[in-house]
């Protein structure tokens, strides 16, 4: 393993101590949020219904990506969507309330875990259908190109989504029209319980998934998604390219999802829980999973910052304590929040014309 103290260079980016600490804080907040979602299944059975997907392991990638944006930029994502709004500054209490199905939730309880959004902060929404958000990002980038304000759109999706026709069609058009979009392929090596090399010709050939960019004469880069600064660098370059009107980039961010694909799926009445990671449950790859745990991007970045003299142990502890407190508050308020009126189900079927 590389020495965390030396594999991230702090200077040269002009991020400054405060931004660096801020990046770390966002990573910790995301991790804490996801931990509390997970714990809810044990501590408050029945409170979360349906399917949740956690971003633990992808915090560095998310935070590093979002850090490359400026106000006005936008993004779309998938069902695994809790991390982005946290990095964008959305209210975690409202997010938790959404996941708990409460009227005070981000989307009033209409969306749930898979469909968070925060359009005011540029988070346009998600699709729960694999790959289908990719054209949404592409279309938003088309809108940005027409507005001519040099805004950029990030489209986040997983490795499995790169096998969807929507990926192919979108990347081709984005390259053809030189759209200001950056495709962030979070390659966590699994599509649910299928390993990437079981379903992807490039992966099977030992090639990075960024190879696919060549089919569209688009730049494709692969980056260590466990290192927020490496991600920030890759995204900054891609975003700058997009902003300059030079077209899209495919960034493959290598991450390792630390939880199972999602919580268990069961009929009502059967308590839900987070099962063991598929690496172990399906493939018996205990050592692979343990290694991923050892490479956990959150402590890794903390160690790098501490070693680089940017973060003190005391500050790191207080960041963690603050995050824990924030998420405790999120859980408490969400639990106490009212459910929507049943008849509200029929609202928002159609958008009313603005008055």
């Amino acid at each position, binding site marked *: 393993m590389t020495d965390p103290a030396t594999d991230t260079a702090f200077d040269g980016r002009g991020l400054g101590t405060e931004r660096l600490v801020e990046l770390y804080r966002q990573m910790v907040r995301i991790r804490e949020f996801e931990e509390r979602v997970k714990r809810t299944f044990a501590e408050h059975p029945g409170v979360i219904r349906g399917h949740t997907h956690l971003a633990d392991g992808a915090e560095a990638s998310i935070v590093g990506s979002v850090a490359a944006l400026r106000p006005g930029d936008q993004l779309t994502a998938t069902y695994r969507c809790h991390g982005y709004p946290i990095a964008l500054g959305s209210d975690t209490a409202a997010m938790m309330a959404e996941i708990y199905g409460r009227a005070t939730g981000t989307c009033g*309880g209409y969306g749930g875990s898979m469909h968070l959004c925060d359009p005011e902060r540029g988070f346009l929404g998600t699709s729960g259908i694999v790959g289908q958000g990719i*054209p949404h990002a592409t*279309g938003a980038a*088309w809108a940005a190109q027409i507005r001519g304000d040099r805004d950029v759109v990030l489209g986040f999706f997983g490795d499995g989504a790169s096998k969807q026709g929507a990926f192919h069609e979108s990347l081709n058009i984005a390259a053809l029209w030189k759209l200001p979009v950056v495709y962030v392929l979070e390659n966590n090596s699994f599509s649910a319980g299928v390993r990437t090399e079981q379903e992807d010709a490039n992966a099977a050939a030992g090639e990075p998934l960024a190879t696919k960019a060549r089919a569209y004469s688009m730049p494709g880069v692969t980056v260590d998604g466990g290192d927020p600064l490496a991600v920030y660098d890759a995204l900054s370059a891609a975003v700058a390219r997009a902003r300059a009107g030079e077209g899209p980039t495919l960034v493959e961010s290598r991450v390792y999802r630390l939880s199972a694909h999602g919580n268990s799926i069961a009929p009502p009445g059967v308590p839900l829980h987070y099962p063991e990671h598929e690496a172990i449950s399906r493939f018996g790859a205990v050592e692979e999973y343990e290694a991923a745990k050892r490479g956990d991007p959150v402590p890794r970045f903390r160690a790098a910052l501490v070693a680089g003299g940017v973060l003190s142990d005391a500050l790191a502890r207080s960041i963690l304590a603050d995050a824990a407190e924030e998420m405790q508050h999120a859980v408490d308020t969400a639990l106490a929040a009212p459910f929507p009126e049943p008849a509200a189900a029929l609202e928002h079927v159609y958008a009313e014309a603005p008055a």
Partner: protein
Amino acid sequence: MSTHETTYIGAVMEAIDLEMARDERVLLLGQSVGGRPDDPFVQRYGENRVRVTPISETAEIGMAVGAALAGMRPVVDATMAEFLLVAMDQVVNEGNRFHHMSGGRVRVPMVLKAGYGFTAGWAGQHTGSIYGMFMGVPGLKVALPSTPADAKGLMASAIRDDNPVLFLHHYLLTLDRGEVPDGEHLVPFGQAVIRRPGADVTLVATGWTVPMALAAAATLAADGIEAEVIDPRTIAPLDTATVLASVRRTGRLVLVDQATRHASVSAVLAAEVAEAGFDALRAPIVQVTGLDAGIAYSRPMEEHVLPDEAKVVAAVRRVVEYSGTRV
């Protein structure tokens, strides 16, 4: 109100043109859109807003969703209704869902324009009247104009609507001519129109079957049977109230629909009227629809599965002559 004569398809394009001139957020994309510097839309609105696309239906429609989320009002010319099926998820499970799933925080104003019902030797894959599979999709509106004036007015309303709208124009009506209001012309969604008043029987028809029903009504009038012909114009939302009120006057209902019987507007209206208007009915409801089969290529078979004027006339006679046994 001054009017001019134009074709059904010309009226559709006129509405798109006017709306693009009126609102620069309106965009037009599709496989047969623009693509040449001398295209009139490209000349008027520029290549940014008028874009030819590759054969990538999922991306075309998905990009419209994304552009709408980002504040634009895209119109996708999907050419033929069947091509929507390649991108079914985007049509019935993306754009239509976002407003509701976000609790009203985002909206997806977009129009999917597609032709349908081209029963002119195109065989099985390019001819369907497949609106039945879209009319029950929450969040999606569906317009089925039958006249040039409605084609213009419904398209304009579709573009101004804040929701995804599937605008289906009938290919067999493409070159039909009619008077169309000059300038701004909006036809509201969810408001059926009575094309011909009549006291003896209610005839409901959509799209290409509207002129068929009117012709049948003229034939029947010669025999003293007065049919009231109603055109719902949009099937989502569907104006059941106008149909019910008419049935309360006539006591009889014949439904004409080009779609396969079990995925038709007529099946839905039959159920609604049976439930809410049973007391007013003096005879069973009769549906004259496409048969539940694909459209065959060869002409005699193609015609066999479709409704026609004679079938409508015969159905009305059966209903009017109904005497308490079976129709």
